[in-house]
């Protein structure tokens, strides 16, 4: 049922896209049906899956490459499916109001559906390569979704940035996957985790894989694309950039961590990057006035947090990470929706420009408050439960985990601060920004149905906080699925533990930070790095463009003489060097064969050299003819009458044709600066000459077997029916060559005719007589 469901996403998505204009926002219903059905189906499977009975299905694709459509729904995948499909369904519902009758709704619906399918694929894939396939599909759909307002240059740039950064990571990851797969002998994730490979190759491969995960999950220093992607309409941000896609990296890290956390640089890398991200993201979230930017950096920070927890690979942290995943999905999606509604109804999301919100906005503000509180880990909300879990896990862990805890707490303080900032933005904007005088009050609030999806999510945050038993089983199962040693029992109240103390301290510190926001802002402004992540990206892209232009201007000068020089130099040097490097010299042959060769060779050499230095076109052409005649003479001496004949005739014909063509040109070659200097040309010519001489002598001296043509002479008459062996060879033994030769002539004739006529055949035939007269008149002086 899993594969058909994924297929359903694809079919529904394509159908919605195809009918985008006709269906309009009804497409959201069709498209949304796919994640909704998936969520329902997942719910029905939950019991068995949580009991440890994973649903597996498989289909073959390219088995020889290890690329199979293997899917497996275990409890962790189930948790992710809840996020992907559950939140997804709500996003579709939210989008109904958000887009209204906008003309892009159809495309958004279709792409969102495709995205949901791809994301579902990521979280249920049991094959590294399949995971990569779905992974990149999410990148592509994300590209198209971010760029949905394609008339805006910013949207295009942000879409490209997201695609390139995640694509870069993805490609590194692919390399890592293949290396791991080859090391392990399988690309099946379940088999791989059961028997993880070790060694240097694996360690390197894991770094590559992590690179992919980091890029996808917007970890420093790859995070820049995520804030930029906020130009997309909010349903897209809510889904892709908080609930689902950015979790792909986290998902992957979580999957691999229990098996690989101890190998190589995994742990330091994951914890280092995760903490950096958490802290840096948190700090950045304190600055923007654009609510969406605030959320974006908050997401970056939270993703860092999750990477730390799930990347540690210890049982406790893993369980906590699972809880945080779900909690974050709930509150962050809700917050995005809230900001989206504000943006939609007030046409701004800048705190400084927000109107005062009237009574109609209270429900929405409540939703925002609840979700922000969950984000800040205020009890009794889901966020609190998760963070509590995390603190206690890290507290109980080894030295390294304690170290991580320091960072996590610091990050959480920042989280509290920016959560407060967000909540304040909706309730007391004056706290966040200088309130402009005469702020109009917008009394009429958003439509209830518009708020409903967000409210549902906020309610979830509350419910899960109040009644941890609701999701304890799911988190426990997910943690066990990742790591058999793991497992947890979520609770709101664990008693007066160190973790609780830390939580309280965190909240207090965060509040203090928020209170002293002006000082903080001042310090931050002082300390803000000159170069942000966006600058780095810009710099790299610009560097690539410049490099491309430079390289291209060198290798592609557009000049035929240079191309010819390159070709001939390569052709003479490479084989010659290759030959000289090995055993090749067969010994000196005779200096001179027949006496007649001497004058003929002299003739050829003299005429050829003369043609080279000739300053007149016509003379050069005639000298070429002399060379040809000399060749004919040589053929006579070599015992090749047919050849001599043909050579002679063809040479004459060539000269005649040449002369016909030359008529139009001045007689002397113009003295112009040649593309290549004389010396260069001489060097290249010399190289070609040496190459021909050496290779010819080496080849001729190395013949051991008699030529196959021996047999031809004997069989010419009986089998070929001719006395002239060369003729028999031409028309019978190698008749195919001759056929080809004739074909070449025919094609040449057609081509030359077309060229001769080109430009003289008017496109539409004018009256013939008039045209002719006109031409005659034109000819008259």
């Amino acid at each position: 049922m899993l594969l058909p469901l994924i297929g359903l996403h694809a079919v529904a998505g394509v159908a919605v896209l195809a009918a985008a204009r006709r269906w309009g926002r009804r497409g959201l219903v069709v498209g949304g049906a796919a994640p909704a059905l998936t969520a329902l189906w997942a719910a029905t499977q939950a019991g068995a899956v949580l009991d440890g009975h994973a649903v597996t299905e498989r289909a073959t694709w390219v088995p020889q490459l290890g690329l199979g459509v293997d899917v497996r729904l275990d409890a962790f995948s189930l948790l992710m499916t809840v996020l992907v499909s559950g939140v997804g369904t709500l996003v579709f519902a939210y989008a109904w109001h958000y887009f209204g009758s906008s003309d892009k709704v159809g495309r958004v619906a279709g792409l969102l559906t495709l995205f949901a399918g791809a994301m579902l694929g990521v979280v249920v894939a049991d094959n590294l390569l399949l995971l990569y396939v779905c992974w990149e599909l999410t990148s592509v759909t994300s590209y198209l979704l971010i760029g949905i307002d394609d008339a805006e240059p910013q949207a295009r740039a942000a879409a490209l940035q997201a695609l390139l950064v995640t694509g870069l990571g993805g490609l590194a990851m692919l390399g890592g996957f293949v290396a791991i797969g080859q090391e392990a002998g399988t690309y099946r994730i379940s088999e791989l985790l059961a028997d993880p490979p070790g060694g240097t190759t694996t360690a390197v491969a894991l770094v590559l894989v992590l690179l992919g995960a980091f890029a996808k999950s917007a970890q420093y220093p790859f995070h820049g694309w995520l804030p930029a992607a906020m130009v997309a309409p909010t349903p897209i941000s809510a889904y892709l950039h908080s609930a689902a896609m950015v979790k792909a990296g986290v998902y992957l890290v979580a999957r691999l961590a229990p098996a690989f956390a101890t190998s190589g640089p995994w742990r330091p890398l994951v914890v280092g990057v995760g903490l950096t991200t958490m802290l840096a993201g948190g700090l950045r979230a304190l600055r923007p006035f654009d609510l969406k930017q605030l959320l974006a950096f908050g997401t970056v920070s939270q993703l860092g947090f999750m990477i730390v927890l799930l990347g540690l690979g210890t049982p406790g942290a893993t369980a906590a990470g699972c809880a945080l995943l779900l909690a974050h999905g709930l509150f962050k999606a809700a917050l995005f929706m809230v900001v989206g509604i504000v943006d939609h109804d007030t046409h701004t999301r800048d705190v400084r420009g927000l109107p005062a919100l009237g009574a109609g906005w209270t429900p929405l503000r409540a939703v925002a408050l609840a979700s922000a509180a969950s984000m800040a880990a205020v009890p009794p909300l889901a966020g609190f439960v998760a963070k509590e879990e995390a603190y206690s896990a890290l507290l109980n862990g080894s030295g390294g985990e304690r170290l991580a805890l320091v960072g996590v707490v610091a990050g959480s303080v920042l989280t509290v601060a920016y959560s407060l900032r967000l909540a304040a933005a909706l309730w007391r904007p004056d706290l966040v920004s200088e309130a402009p005088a005469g702020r109009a009050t917008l009394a009429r609030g958003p439509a209830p149905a518009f708020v409903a999806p967000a409210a549902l999510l906020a309610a979830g945050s509350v419910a899960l906080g109040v009644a941890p038993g609701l999701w304890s089983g799911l988190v426990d199962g997910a943690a066990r699925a990742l790591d058999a040693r793991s497992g947890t029992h979520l609770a709101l109240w664990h008693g007066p533990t160190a973790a609780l103390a830390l939580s309280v301290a965190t909240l207090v510190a965060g509040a203090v930070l928020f209170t002293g926001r002006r000082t903080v802002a001042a310090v931050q402004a002082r300390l803000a790095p000159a170069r942000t992540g966006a600058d780095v990206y810009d710099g790299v892209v610009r560097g690539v463009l410049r490099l491309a232009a430079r390289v291209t201007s060198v290798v592609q000068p557009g000049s035929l003489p240079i191309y010819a020089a390159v070709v001939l130099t390569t052709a003479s040097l490479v084989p010659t060097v290759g030959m000289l490097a090995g055993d090749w010299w067969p010994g000196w042959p005779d200096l001179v064969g027949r006496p007649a060769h001497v004058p003929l060779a002299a003739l050829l050499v003299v005429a050829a050299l003369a043609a080279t230095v000739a300053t007149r076109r016509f003379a050069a052409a005639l000298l070429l003819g002399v060379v040809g005649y000399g060749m004919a003479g040589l053929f006579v001496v070599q015992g090749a009458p047919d050849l001599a004949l043909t050579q002679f005739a063809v040479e004459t014909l060539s000269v005649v044709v040449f002369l016909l063509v030359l008529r139009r040109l001045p007689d002397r070659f113009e003295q112009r600066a040649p593309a290549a200097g004389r010396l260069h040309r001489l060097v290249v010519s010399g190289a070609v000459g040496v190459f021909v001489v050496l290779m010819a002598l080496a080849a001729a001296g190395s013949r051991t077997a008699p030529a196959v043509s021996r047999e031809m002479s004997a069989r010419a008459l009986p089998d070929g029916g001719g006395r002239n062996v060369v003729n028999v060879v031409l028309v019978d033994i190698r008749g195919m060559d001759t056929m080809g030769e004739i074909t070449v002539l025919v094609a040449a004739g057609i081509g030359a005719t077309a060229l001769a006529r080109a430009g003289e055949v008017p496109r539409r035939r004018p009256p013939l007589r008039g045209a002719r007269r006109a031409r005659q008149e034109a000819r008259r002086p």
Partner: protein
Amino acid sequence: MSALLGGPVLLPLLGAALSVGVGRWRNAQRLVGVTTLVVDAVASIALLHRVDRHGVASVQAGGWEAPVGITLVADRLAAIMLVVAVLVLLAVLVYAIGQPGAEEQHVGFHPVYLILAAGIGAAFLTGDLFNLFVAFEVMLMASYALITLGGRPDQVRSGMTYVVISLLASTLFLLALAFVYSATGTLNMADLTTKIAALPGGLRSGLALLLVVVFGIKAAIFPLFSWLPDSYPTAPTPVTAVFAGLLTKVGVYALLRSQTLLFPPGTRPGTLLLVVAALTMVVGVLGAIAQNDIKRILSFHIVSQIGYMVMGIGLFTVAGLAGAVIYIVHHIVVKTTLFLVAGLVEQRTGTAHLDELTGLRRLEPVLAVLFILPALSLAGLPPFSGFVAKLALVEAGLDAGAVVVVGVSLAVSLLTLLSMTKIWANAFWGPDPSHDTGRTMTAPRQALMVGATASLVVLSLAVAVAAGPLYGLSERAARDLVDTSAYVHEVLAP
């Protein structure tokens, strides 16, 4: 059997003769052309089926058994190439019939096009080195005629580059043939297998490298590629499309064939080819990034992707060669499609220059779809054919320990993506075009163009879907290339 092997060569020639015969009656020419290629396609598929089932097949032309006469040989590789080539030729012909322009204005188009088909067929099937030269010449001469059809000044200029460089390549090929015959006294490729092995090592590698250069020029590998991006974009669209898809690949095929069949394992320039492959990929893709014209971008990508194929060849393992084969198949279909789309863009808007294009997505959503699918495939994004091909090469490369070239290939595919999105973002995205030339694409003849393009898109999707069996086929083909005994035995002792 002989009909199946001779068909792909003789049939188009016959068609060409007929086409010349019916002359100015254009509809008859069209009928002849399409019929010929359809029959050719059927024959090729039958040949592939047979070869895949019963192994290498051969025919001694004129009854002169090898190595005296010319042998036509079809192994899996040749048959695969043939099938793909003919299908693409057919689709492009249909497109050309739909397009107002070259096909309509010149009596010579159909005959020359069929001659091109014959040349390509002969190049794939011949088992004789000199006959390969002749096949190349047939193909090239037809291509010269096609690329200059119309005789516009820019065409003439770029045609000159193309013809002169090709002529140099042909001359070098002739020299190579002379050296080979001089040293071995035979031209039959199967016969050469044993005779070249007996040559002194230095001479052997000299010959191998010379052939690499010769075919490398036609295949446009670094540093011999510069002619390609200058010459391809100026030709009429169908011509460019078929060149882009097929001609360089004939060079790659020849490279593949000559290096695996003629030179014994251990003496092949594998490392050199890998280095060249990496450079080709990088330089090609950088060139593409620097361009601002769709056709030129695509042309540079040909170069870049030739690098991938050469990488597969340079590995000289079953996996590498199989990867190269499936990459070639993918590339032929996808690249042709993209050029056809570029032609449609040009047809619709009058230009293919990115500075002058915008918002095509709104104008022609169908075109946008037709572009983005093969474009993503070209960039090697899953789940398209390009991904499978790239994956095959990456796996083969890592398996053989060629880490650097694999890394380069992955990086290059990102840059490929960059330049594909450049086309997409500039031409298809963006604000509405301020002025619309109004050349809508609804006329029945344009339906032919769109239909032909769409059918190639479908074909490329089919390649992705059927990647499993197709890769199996490629792998079997690669086995034949690694172990040439079946080929040699079939030719010399049938």
